[in-house]
């Protein structure tokens, strides 16, 4: 897993950065802000779900080019999860009268920008490409540090809820 992560940023990204840290970050945000109802749905949609919509879009192109062979540095992202998407997410947030879509989307691309694969933040207005934040630091290290911090914060914040849950299902009940 670690070797794959170091050798193959793309595989690393697909396996971990998409799933665990985004879920942890979104859960943390939901807890911190005490979100309820439709705000929780919006938080998970823009903090995590946007990945599920975005990556499959390029699958037909990838399969056409590579078939089932692996290409390490294929550009899987579309502007749907680049900062340029704030162009439509901010008006949507205003329309919905909630800051949740914009805030959780920013948290999403912040995590993506921790990993050092190529990103085009302003496409289609600019083809400027960046490898994100701290590109010389190990992706693996950034990944594990993020997961560790987010896990601790999630458990810390949800401690009382976890205890309540355990006491409800415990032998005393």
């Amino acid at each position, binding site marked *: 897993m670690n070797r*794959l992560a170091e*050798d*193959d940023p*793309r*595989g690393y990204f*697909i*396996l971990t950065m998409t799933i665990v840290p985004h879920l942890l970050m979104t859960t943390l945000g939901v807890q911190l802000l005490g979100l309820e109802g439709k705000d929780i749905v919006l938080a998970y949609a823009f903090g995590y779900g946007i990945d599920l919509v975005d990556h499959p*879009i*390029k699958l037909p*192109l990838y*399969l*056409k*080019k590579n078939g*089932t*062979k*692996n*290409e*390490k540095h294929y*550009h899987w992202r*579309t*502007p*749907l999860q680049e900062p*340029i*998407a704030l*162009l*439509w997410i901010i*008006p*949507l947030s*205003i*329309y919905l009268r909630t800051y949740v879509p914009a805030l959780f989307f920013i948290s999403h691309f912040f995590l993506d920008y921790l990993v050092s694969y190529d990103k*085009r933040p302003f*496409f*289609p*207005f600019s*083809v400027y490409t960046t490898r994100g934040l701290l590109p010389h630091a190990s992706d693996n290290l950034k990944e594990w540090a993020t997961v560790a911090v987010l896990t601790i914060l999630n458990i810390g914040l949800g401690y009382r809820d976890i205890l309540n849950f355990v006491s409800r299902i415990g032998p005393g009940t």
Partner: protein
Amino acid sequence: MKDFSDRILGPLIHFAHERIGLSPNQVSTGGFIIGLLAAALVALGHVLAGLLLMALSQIIDGVDGGIARRYNLRTSKGAYLEAVYDRLNELTMFLALAYIGKASFTMALLAFLAIMLVTIVEPKSKFDPGAKRFMLYFGWLAEVAFGIRGFELSLHVVFFVNLTAVAVGTVIADYRLQKEVDARAIAERKQHRALGLPLPPEDPPSILSKLFSWL
């Protein structure tokens, strides 16, 4: 779509350019002024008359483009002018509806913002759903037929359709770029093979590629 409208408006296009000698920009300006008058009528409470005048303004809007296409008078200045006139007409009409209480100011401004965003992205994506002032006729119909706040509803539709078009438009532009990049890489690979040159080593299979092979 443009060919179709040019055919329908053929006699008007011919009349405006060959009989009266109007240039596309002059026709655009005429349509813009009529659009402003339409908004003024709506703001004064004459909604139906305003909508009829807006329809006339939109027909003229089709004529200017038709003249430019048929007589090869297309210029970037003309396209820019038309876009500015159209946006101003939309803004004034939406604000007029908000002014008489047929829609909220928030929705008028949000719908206009979404249209502006499409205008910015469209040159890159070549994708514009066209749901703008036209939706207001449906709003009027809904108001008359069902007694609901049809104009407000139509502005919601304008907002959503155009905002979706912005997101989709950026994806279309990106998809087009990726297609080009991939086509170049595929051609390069073919050329290497034809020349008998060694191909770059393949990347080791990832979990996903293994999964796809297995499927």
